[in-house]
């Protein structure tokens, strides 16, 4: 199916005939979800820098590039499939597909080409274990999460969170050709971090998700149940974050950062749990937890790298 694209020029909507694209290069960049990509690059790079052994810096950079492009491909395929619900939400209505600047065919071809290209280059330049995990993460995000889970279950974020947890495995495998306990613990940290992070966002964006018919936990189970789940996952996340240190896989730098940032995480999650607000404007604790969770993950992973390079 070839669909005409349209865009606003000089205040008028211009429709390009089928096969003619009105997209700017920035629209293709937006399809890659660069903000999500930055987190993926960071976690993969941290694993790559923490893994024992040696990889040529150029090959290491190619591995990170492939992870970034693979994540971008997942984002493009996700936006291709979700254009209908993106059009209904204020936060996503101006994305290239719902805004009509990129046609579905273009987005699909772009996503598939990047997915195949990133996996092939990873396999040929780095190793096929890293390439296989990268392929698995793209399929997990684009098919298991986007197509299967997101519109069907409020547990979409929990299971779908695994897709975002793959990058440390890829970064580690790129160096060692193997996946051992520490990268799996990094996987577990991101996996358990995802629900409190996204559910705090979903609480203050609940109206948007409800409008689009996405069964996010606050929409289906209500704010109280979501706040309880946020606290429960936070209580699970913090000890798992400290496990690499407790098991002797990292040193005191990582251990102290994990304990301190974990304690702050629990305090913030408790503030969310105690909040009874139903209006987004009164959800200060939720907004603070959402922002802090990003900082928390950054600090924990950065501490793991610091521990490896400075202390060890």
């Amino acid at each position: 199916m070839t669909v005409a694209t349209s865009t606003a020029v000089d205040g008028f909507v211009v429709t390009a005939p089928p096969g003619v694209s009105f997209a700017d290069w920035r629209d293709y960049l937006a399809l890659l979800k660069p903000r999500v990509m930055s987190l993926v690059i960071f976690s993969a790079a941290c694993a790559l820098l923490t893994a024992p052994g040696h990889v040529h810096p150029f090959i290491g950079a190619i591995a990170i590039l492939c992870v970034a492009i693979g994540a971008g491909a997942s984002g493009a395929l996700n936006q291709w499939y979700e254009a209908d619900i993106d059009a209904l939400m204020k936060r996503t209505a101006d994305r290239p597909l719902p805004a009509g600047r990129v046609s579905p065919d273009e987005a699909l071809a772009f996503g598939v080409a990047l997915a195949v290209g990133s996996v092939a280059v990873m396999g040929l330049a780095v190793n096929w274990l890293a390439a296989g995990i990268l392929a698995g993460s793209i399929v997990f995000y684009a098919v298991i999460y986007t197509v299967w889970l997101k519109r069907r279950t409020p547990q979409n974020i929990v299971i779908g969170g695994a897709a975002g947890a793959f990058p440390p495995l890829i970064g580690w495998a790129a160096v060692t050709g193997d996946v051992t306990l520490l990268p799996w613990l990094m996987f577990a940290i991101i996996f358990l971090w995802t629900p409190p992070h996204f559910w705090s966002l979903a609480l203050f964006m609940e109206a948007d998700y409800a409008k689009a018919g996405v069964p996010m936990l606050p929409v289906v189970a209500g704010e109280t149940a979501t706040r309880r789940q946020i606290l429960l996952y936070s209580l699970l996340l913090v000890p798992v974050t400290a496990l690499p240190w407790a098991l002797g896989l990292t040193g005191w730098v990582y251990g102290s950062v994990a304990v301190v940032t974990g304690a702050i995480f629990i305090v913030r999650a408790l503030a969310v749990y105690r909040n009874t607000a139903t209006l987004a404007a009164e959800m200060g604790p939720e907004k603070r937890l959402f922002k802090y969770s990003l900082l928390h993950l950054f600090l924990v992973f950065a501490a793991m790298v610091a521990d490896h390079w400075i202390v060890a």
Partner: protein
Amino acid sequence: MNVDWTPAQTAEFNRRRRSRNFALGLVLGALVLIFFGVSLVKMLP
């Protein structure tokens, strides 16, 4: 191309197409460098 656009709209279309082509050129150039670099790294002792 047979479309009913004003000169301003045609100019905007041309600008966007140029930007896409430029970005594609950069990507292709980067790919050449990547494959060249990977070949060197793999072949050199």
